[in-house]
């Protein structure tokens, strides 16, 4: 705690005309705002599962992500193996511990479940929620889902199950509050490959993060 805290807050209180008389009412307004969590205006939310999936897929593809659909979780390793082969990428990946239990070896992919390091070229993650409004993946960090796996490798593959596709960010907050109670250290909303437009406003994919984002949706 430094001296400037009191100086700055004192100046703010003086400018706002804060007094002992008006502080309790203002405090009540703050508490009410925090309790109400009133959403702002937003586009009409998709609700039907099929239209959520279709909207998420269309929006993701518009952001230069690629999307694949499989029937069950057990189909995921083979679908990813096919994607890697098609892109001529080596069948080697780092994956979040959450997905370590899938039969990667059976699909011919060598997978290590851990945090990513610089030399990892493919990172496979799950996805806490997928947002249809913008085609956005919501990843939450934790011991079973290190944040580096979606960041350091050149190719990021995310596995999303259909029931996790939701309409907008508001539903994502509600889910995070319900599941975690308090927010995980990092919540990353990822919308397509990393990009920059800094040189002559020309968009280049793969600035500091992945060059490619591939999403495998599990329908079942």
């Amino acid at each position, binding site marked *: 705690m*430094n001296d*400037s*805290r009191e*100086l*700055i*807050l004192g*100046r*703010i209180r003086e*400018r*706002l*005309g804060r007094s002992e008389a008006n*502080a309790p009412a*203002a405090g009540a*307004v*703050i508490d009410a*705002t*925090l309790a109400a*969590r*009133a959403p*702002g*205006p*937003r*586009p009409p939310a998709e609700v039907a599962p099929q239209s959520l999936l279709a909207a998420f897929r269309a929006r993701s593809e518009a*952001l230069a992500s690629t999307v694949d659909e499989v029937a069950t979780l057990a189909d995921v390793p083979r679908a990813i193996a096919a994607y890697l082969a098609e892109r001529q990428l080596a069948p080697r990946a780092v994956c979040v511990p959450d997905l370590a239990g899938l039969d990667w070896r059976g699909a011919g992919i060598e997978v290590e479940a851990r*945090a990513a390091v610089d030399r990892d070229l493919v990172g496979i993650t799950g996805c806490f929620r997928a947002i249809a*409004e*913008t085609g*956005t993946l919501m990843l939450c*960090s*934790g*011991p079973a889902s*290190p*944040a*580096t796996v979606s*960041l350091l490798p050149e190719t990021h593959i995310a596995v999303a199950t259909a029931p996790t596709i939701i309409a907008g*960010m*508001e539903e994502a*907050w509600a889910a995070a509050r319900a599941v975690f109670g*308090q*927010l*995980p*250290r*990092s919540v*990353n*909303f*990822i*919308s*397509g*490959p*990393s*990009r*920059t437009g*800094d*040189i*002559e*406003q020309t968009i280049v994919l*793969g*600035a500091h*993060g*992945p060059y490619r984002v591939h999403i495998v949706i599990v329908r079942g």
Partner: protein
Amino acid sequence: MEIKSMHFKARAAAQLANAGLQANLKKVKGKFVDKRRDAIADFCAQGGDFEALREAGEDLRDRVLADLDLWLEKFEANATARGATVLWAKDGAEACRLIVDIAKQHDVKKATKSKSMLSEEAGLNQALEAAGIQPVETDLGEYILQINDNEAPSHIIAPVVHKSKEEIADLFARVHKKPRLTDIGEMTREAREVLRSHFLSADMGISGGNFLVAETGSVALVTNEGNGRMVTTVPKVHVVITGIEKVIPTLEDLSLMLRLLIRSATGQPISNYVSLLTGTKGEGDFDGPEHLYYVLVDNGRSNLLAGEFNAMLRCIRCGACMNHCPVYQAVGGHAYGWVYPGPMGSVLTPLFTGMKNALDLPHAATLCNQCGVVCPVKIPLPELLRKLREKQVEKNLRPLGERLALKAWAWVAARPALYHLGTRFAVRYLKWLAGGKQSIPVLGVAPEWTVGRDFPAPQGKTFRELYAQAKKS
């Protein structure tokens, strides 16, 4: 950053005469404008109402500012509960001192930075260097400026918008000591490789903050490149340097502000990365900083609260005002001479650095209100610029010649007979200057006025003469 705003006229003239800069500005002109327009059209096609969003954004920011003390305390309490240390800095110098102290305490040799305009206000890089700590800018644009002898940014979200790819290719070849590349994709890859090693070896990450969420004690970062994620994930220490006005109440409010900010800034429906960071590395976590500090900086902001310029504190730094400003588009960002260019910069620079340092900036606007209509939080920028002009007059800051001329005019205007005589003479003088033509190519008493345009010649009689005539008949 050193203030050069007092030299606006000379700097603007130099930029207008700089053929290279004009060509670069022309190349990107309109790109941001078109993208923003398309993004809003797309949002409306989704059934969204962007005007309703702007109104809600304005209302939200005003509500926070009205109880800023309490919102900051709420943020501080919730951030602290998650293991962060919240520090306060009254000005840029104190912010630099605090951050250098943090770096020393954790034995930091290298700090990677994601973009922060406030760190430019404070001159943080210079302070770190003086203390023997290497700051590395990691936003591609900011990195280009840093390796070009710490050149100043010319736009708040596209810092090298004034540079051509050829200039950047020369710079990379010189600094990276590699063969000169001219493909933008290959150049970006080269910078990625250079910066990747810095990301992995830095002991401290420094970021700005787009929003502070009071409800959860979190900071939200909006980036496209992923550098914001890098500097807040890899190093053991993370420092957030941000202004005291950046707080918003809830996560729902964050959704609202993101819908507004990103469309207004880059014209994307959402940026590639939005990171919401709360507290330090948890038990069992593989990554994340062990130490997290917030440095909340005032640097002139609290002086604006609840006053005539309160609305300026709503600003969320999207850059839409400069993208749409005919003056900014003509002279570029460097002419403005400090951290913030364009209409928002013309308001902030005199308020933060002193009226006397930026006398020309409030006049460097046509008051066409393009900035006002695109501002996502509805800041009445032309009105604020006009107020600053009024302040200059009130505080006797206008040049002596202008003040005397206005005094003389007021004295004459208060004497109807004299005014009548004066206008009759003036009209005849102007007619004589026009020499029977429709316009005056060089205005005798104020030749500067006709440098880039003609002055229309008066036609017929004065209003007072016509009025007198009409009354008679």
